[in-house]
């Protein structure tokens, strides 16, 4: 627990003893600002997340809102660029007076927003961005991540690869040339080298973000014939790469490892055949093996499909987690406040140790603000019911075992892993 939090909790506790003067008036509405890409390539994530947020919050409000208060959302387009985003963020906090912010999808934006949220003293959920650095390198009182980060996501991918393809020798990587593409490869390679020191990296490609053509990379990969090809790309870039690779038969000669391809499966259609490893940045999958028989879950999946024409993808799960976290935090704070509506600071106090469940398994917020979330990966198979590949041999890894321990940095912790780590991490296995 960090010093600031102890002090703040102690202060709140001391003040709370003073009487019920702290109970705030119940507001007419609970205002939440959400930043998401509604334009640009990453709108493949922002648009479904917005659609899901609208559905989930309409449902929430129909059932009494949070503590009897309906929730109102304000969306900000991350696609407008960093400066515009920060200005909008300030406007929502200072002029509109939102009670909490969910920001954001881009790690770059999270980097800029975390210190701003701290300055503005506004509860901020990093609802989708992946960079592990923010909470490892700085301490925040107001900033929490209601999902995992890049380290457990990449580590789970390495574990799945080593559990299912223990004998592979060579690997190549084709990632987007920006922070995520580079950082995810660093994490993946550090973990892989620690657990399988004899692996050989035969090619590293970082085509530019939004590259329309991977033909040359594919020719080169055909000549090299690596056992495994990793790509942490997403959106149109991933679609293009996989489709061009499939057109030229590369998907038949190498196993593709695609940690974000859960979000592309439906668009890839028959291009992605059987036998490739797919992840979804958490236990996010519309046929979630523990949820697919749950009536409320399947009803949501069907309603979402009805509304948007597609099944939910991981940003939908991520936004559901942020909303669930907000609800859980307010309920915990209300309870701690003797049933009265809490001050904002009390809600922030409620965050540490908070457990909540969105559409997937439950997530717990740790002392550094990081959410501990389980990770699901699977291998593609082709079935009759869907016109795109679905997942089989799914494994869900326990988030506790694969998240960098409190107080350590991922870069150092990953280096301490050994080949024995692969067996030591339990996985729940499910079939399609």
């Amino acid at each position, binding site marked *: 627990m960090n010093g600031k939090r102890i002090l703040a909790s102690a202060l709140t506790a001391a003040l709370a003893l003073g009487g019920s003067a702290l109970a705030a008036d119940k507001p007419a509405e609970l205002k939440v600002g959400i930043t998401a890409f*509604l*334009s*640009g*390539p990453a*709108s*493949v994530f*922002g*648009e479904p997340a917005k659609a899901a947020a609208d559905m989930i919050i309409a449902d929430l409000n129909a059932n009494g809102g949070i503590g009897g208060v309906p929730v109102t959302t304000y969306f900000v387009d991350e696609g407008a660029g960093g400066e515009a985003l920060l200005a909008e963020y300030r406007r929502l906090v200072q002029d509109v007076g939102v009670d909490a912010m969910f920001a954001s999808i881009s790690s770059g934006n999270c980097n800029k927003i975390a210190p701003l949220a701290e300055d503005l003293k506004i509860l901020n959920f990093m609802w989708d961005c992946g960079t592990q650095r923010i909470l490892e390198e700085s301490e925040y009182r107001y900033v929490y991540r209601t999902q995992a980060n890049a380290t457990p996501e990449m580590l789970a991918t390495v574990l799945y690869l080593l559990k299912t393809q223990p004998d592979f020798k060579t690997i190549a990587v084709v990632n987007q*040339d920006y922070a995520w593409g580079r950082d995810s490869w660093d994490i993946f390679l550090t973990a892989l080298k620690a657990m399988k020191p004899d692996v050989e990296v035969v*090619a*590293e*490609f*970082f*085509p*530019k973000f*939004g590259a*329309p*053509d991977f*033909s*040359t*990379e594919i*020719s*080169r990969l*055909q*000549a090299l014939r690596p056992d495994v090809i990793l790509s942490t790309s997403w*959106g*149109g*870039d991933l*679609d*293009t790469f996989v*489709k*061009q690779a499939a*057109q*030229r*038969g590369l998907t038949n000669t190498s196993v593709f490892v695609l940690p974000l391809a859960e979000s592309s499966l439906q*668009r890839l259609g028959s*291009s992605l055949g059987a036998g490739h490893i797919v992840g979804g940045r958490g236990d996010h999958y519309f046929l979630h093996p523990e949820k697919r028989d749950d009536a409320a879950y399947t009803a949501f999946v069907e309603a979402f499909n009805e509304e948007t024409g*597609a099944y939910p993808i991981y940003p939908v799960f991520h936004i559901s987690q942020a909303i669930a976290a907000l609800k859980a935090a307010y309920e915990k704070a209300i309870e701690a406040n003797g049933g009265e509506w809490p001050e904002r600071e009390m809600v922030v106090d409620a965050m540490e140790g908070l457990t909540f469940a969105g559409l997937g398994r439950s997530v717990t917020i740790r002392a550094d603000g990081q959410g501990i979330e389980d990770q699901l990966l699977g291998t593609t198979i082709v079935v009759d019911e869907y016109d795109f590949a679905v997942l089989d041999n799914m494994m869900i890894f326990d988030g506790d075992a694969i998240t960098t321990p409190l107080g350590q940095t991922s870069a150092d912790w990953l280096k301490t892993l050994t080949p024995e780590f692969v067996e030591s991490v339990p996985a729940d296995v499910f079939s399609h």
Partner: protein
Amino acid sequence: MNPQLFALAIFDGIAYAALVFLVAVGLTLIFGVLRVLNVAHGSFYAMGAYATASVGAAIFAAGYSPWLAFPLMLVAAVLVGVIVGGPIEKLLLSRIYEMEEVLQILVTFAVFMILEDVQRLIWGAQPFFEASALMALGNVEVFGITYTAYQLILLPAVAVSVLIGLRLFLRRTLSGKLILAVTEDREAATSIGINAERVYLVTFIVGASLAAFGGALASATTSVQPGMGADMIVLSFAVVATAGLGQIEGAALAALLIGLGRSFAIYLWPELEVLIPYLIMLLVLLIRPEGLFGKSRTRKI
């Protein structure tokens, strides 16, 4: 690098250059005649791709032959050129030919931004991928590496045909000669009775259609998604600047240089891939500030 990889790098480079050339040639044609650097050119590329991919997806889903994709590309390209390009020249650009160049670029940039949003309104944010045309042509195996015939044979063939076709059109037909006359000296051409306004309009539509045609051809190979126009316009500028503004044959050579440079970079030094077009441009412009084929012009008083 062994001879096999050398040959592969050349094939990859040519296929890539073909697509870049088709877009760049439209840009350079428009500049050559109208003297306007048209940033909105990237939008024509994107709209050609969107139109082909979305209409194609609909008609193939309805069970029509994938071979229809080829005529569809031509139709989409011409429609984008006429319906989108035509009004832009007639209503907007025709008013600003006398203005400063900076202002002209700003206006076309504004058009580009507006058209980006128009694309989102019409086609949404999800990427399209419609490769029926490419699949219909099948694969070719060269040195144990599988290529698509579409990229290895069709795209270069189309690029060469466009190059030859444009050359013949400009040198041998009346309309082409009128365009050349206006390019050379608008005032003199107008004084002998050439309708310069009409020539401008036709040139702009042809240039826009070429960009849309490039997009239509590209749509079979790539994800059609928001932002694709911006990337292409930047690359086309590099090609056009390397070639010398207004130089059609130069654009072909510059596209080939950049395409080959890029593919060799991927084989030899992948980190350099993104830089290559601009390094080539920098080198050429350092030695020849007017571009490979550009002519230094004496300033008219």
